[in-house]
């Protein structure tokens, strides 16, 4: 009655997970529901729970190693039970070790021995040959499916498709646990069902080490979040016909408005970003043609504005979502965005808090970036890149004066938004920011 502990899909897009820390150790008594380990998923650090009672007999995957979803990471069994057959039956797959030390460029250290092809072959040869009386895993055991390659048919139930479409989850990067690897509703629910752990990002620096010799190279393993960023962005820039529109906005009156609001003495201070978020949301309500998803065979337009807000975190970036930003007050937006940013940095966001946005805003003003272009977060059709606010000489009432100006650049998916459509949206946004009263009008 041994229980195999398998790497579980703890977020909708997770295909592999890295064991950060074992909270239980070999020989420890465990009960169903106990947290066994902390696992770094593609977006956050989550808890891996025990699905059965017994003693943690064997830890298969050491801390710092990454394995695919569905692979064996440990074995729970009764103390006297023979578990020797289990690891072998599961295919003897090895976790990928993470180079903890900087690798010196010695030819002998070439990674050929751990080449993925080799590992996979070994796993496939062994996996199906489980002896008939080997105890079966407690959980319905999906054959871990590799994510779908471009152009391949995605196997998913109609219900799973609807849920995924609604939440903005990309089924192509998911593994299914239904018959024949079909993606079913449960696969999309696993993410929200798993409890989140409060965990500072302390162990994330595992791969960093001082330079030892001049000219040495440093191989830093990809964190899960970095891999997700890479995957998502390649999906964006390459296939999406982007074009860019830049507009310079006079921020004097927005400045005054912010000063006035903050002078009210409320504990909650308003930032320029909050004002921009609110203005973008309201402008999108007036221009729903920009508040849309490209869905390959159709375009979905939203009446609600769920605004993604790109936030830099230690290892990369994540876009928490302010839902129904159009309906929230500036103060509500300020409170919510502060909370989301804080929790994003602590990696405590729940999957539903960073998926489902209909449009995004990326702000690099605090880095003194004058203007830049941001990469669209598919299936959204647009993103607004916000530069720094700085005094610039402009002609005002026939005189050359210094005024606070801010440049925004909108990246548009030309399949959804045409030049004039995007321009009209920017015009509305500019009008709102240059006359903040328009927001309450």
């Amino acid at each position, binding site marked *: 009655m041994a229980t195999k502990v398998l790497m579980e899909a703890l977020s909708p897009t997770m295909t592999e997970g890295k064991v950060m820390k074992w909270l239980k150790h070999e020989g420890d008594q465990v009960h169903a529901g106990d947290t066994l380990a902390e696992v770094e998923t593609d977006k956050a650090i989550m808890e891996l729970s025990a699905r059965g009672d017994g003693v943690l007999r064997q830890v298969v995957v050491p801390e710092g190693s990454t394995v695919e979803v569905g692979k064996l990471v440990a074995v729970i069994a009764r103390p006297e039970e023979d578990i020797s057959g289990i690891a072998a039956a599961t295919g003897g797959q090895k976790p990928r070790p993470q180079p903890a030390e900087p690798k010196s460029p010695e030819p002998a250290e070439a990674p050929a021995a751990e080449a993925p092809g080799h590992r996979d072959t070994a796993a496939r040869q062994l996996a199906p040959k489980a002896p008939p009386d080997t105890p079966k895993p*407690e*959980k*319905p055991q999906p054959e871990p499916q590799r994510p779908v390659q471009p152009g391949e048919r995605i196997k998913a139930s109609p*219900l799973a498709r609807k849920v995924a479409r609604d939440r903005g989850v990309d089924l192509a990067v998911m593994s299914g646990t239904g018959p024949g690897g079909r993606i079913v*509703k449960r696969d999309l629910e696993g993410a929200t069902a798993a409890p989140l752990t409060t965990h500072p990002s302390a162990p994330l620096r595992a791969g960093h080490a001082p330079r030892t010799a001049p000219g040495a190279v440093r191989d830093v393993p990809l964190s899960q979040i970095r891999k997700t960023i890479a995957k998502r962005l390649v999906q964006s820039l390459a296939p999406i016909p982007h074009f860019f529109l830049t507009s310079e906005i006079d921020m004097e009156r927005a400045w005054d408005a912010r000063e006035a609001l903050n002078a009210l003495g409320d504990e909650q201070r308003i930032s320029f970003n909050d004002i921009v978020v609110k203005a973008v949301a309201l402008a999108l309500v007036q221009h729903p043609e920009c508040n849309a998803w490209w869905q390959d065979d159709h375009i979905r337009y939203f009446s609600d504005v769920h605004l993604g807000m790109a936030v830099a975190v230690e290892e990369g970036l994540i876009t928490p979502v302010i839902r129904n930003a159009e309906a929230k007050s500036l103060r509500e937006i300020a409170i919510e965005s502060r909370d989301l940013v804080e929790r994003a940095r602590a990696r405590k966001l729940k999957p539903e808090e960073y998926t489902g946005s209909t449009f995004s805003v990326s702000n690099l003003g605090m880095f003194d970036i004058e203007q830049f272009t941001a990469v669209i977060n598919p299936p959204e059709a647009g993103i607004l890149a916000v530069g720094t606010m700085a005094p610039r000489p402009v002609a005002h009432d026939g005189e050359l004066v210094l005024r606070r100006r801010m440049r925004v650049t909108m990246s548009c998916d030309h399949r959804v938004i045409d030049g004039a459509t995007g321009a009209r949206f920017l015009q509305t946004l500019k009008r709102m920011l240059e006359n903040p009263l328009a927001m309450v009008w």
Partner: protein
Amino acid sequence: MANFDVIVVGGGPGGYVCAIRAAQLGLNTAVVERDKLGGVCVNVGCIPSKALLHSAYVANLVRHDAKDFGVEPGTVTLNFGTAIKHSRRVSEQNSKGVEFLMKKHKVTVIKGEGVLAAGRKVKVGNETHAAAKAVVLATGTRVKGIPQIGLEINQTTVISSDEALFLETVPKTLAIVGAGAVGTEFADIFSAFGTKVTLIEVLPRMLPIEDAESSATIARVFKKRGIDVLAGVKVKAATVGKNGVILELEVGGNAQKLEVEKVLMAAGRALNTQNVGLEAAGVTLDERGFVKVDQHLRTTAEGVYCIGDIAGPPMLAHKGSREGVHVAEVIAGQKPHPIRYDNIPSVTYCHPEVASIGLTEDQCKEQKLEYVVGRFNLSANGRARAANETEGFVKIIRDQKYGEILGAHIVASHASEMIHELAVARENEYTVEEIELAVHAHPTLSEAVAEAALDAMGRVIHG
């Protein structure tokens, strides 16, 4: 002593199906049965009662509806004994059929009472048989009375389905204790053959596990047919005489007496977990008395599996059969699709039939789900009108957001045949949209399913 790979104890719908599947997978399999193959289902349950229900249907058709269809049968004579003969013939054919299947699949049938012993062994009489891979326990349930209130089954005035299925003549009056599927079906049978039936249920409505609308419809139909349905009524005590029984009932706080010729006990079944060697084999029971099993139906004893009624509810033949297939595949080292216990259809074969799958509307409310009900009444269905069987409806409860089918409830002359469209839909996570997208033949009762799905999307055509 003979050696097998797998020994199945019990040859009912769980056990014999398990044995066939195990044999198909190349395992040397034996099944131990003390009585006839096919178990309660084939011999004193599902199958003979369906034969009697058909007799009941024909009786009602000929006596009441035939003339509307242009057939005037004249004087109608009902002969319950002949109906019983027909039902016995059907049972025997089916049991023989199971015997044939055992031979065909080279499953050894061991006659006698199987008793487990330690180490995957089964004793039958003086013989001990060993199973190299697994023993599967499938001993099922039997009828029971309520001796605490004087209603012990005496096989004459206080009977169970075991006796009811062999009666030569019908009683003039009959009280049925328990208005679940079994009680409701017998009420239908005996009422059709002229018995004055009182159907008693302690819970607030008959067919208590079905949707409240289904219960209400059948209660209304039964009342029209002259069956007294007493729901929310407790049997406090019984005085059992030679030619009759007096029941003391508590109806809404008031005491009432009911005198009947016979009482049919149809409230619950006793588990066959005694004298089968559970202790010796190391098999433990859970707090409700069912055999303790995990997700793959493994008991606490190494290599001993348990399926069917004694492995836990719902006590349904088709649930036991599916568990049998599942266990056989697990034993053979396969990874079967997990059994979805929330997707097992439930059917009561009274007239009209009641069938359901998934949640009732009350359960949706309790779980605070956001749902929409799609409904279609058979009175608007051409096929139902053609057969004068317009009593009933199809009700589909969909999740508001995604259209997931949370539950479906059908009351119709052929509800048992109509429910499977929804079972397939739910198993594959089709939503109401996919149900409706499939073209339904016209005219059929199943069109009502498609219409209910349309109604759930707010665009019913004929409603």
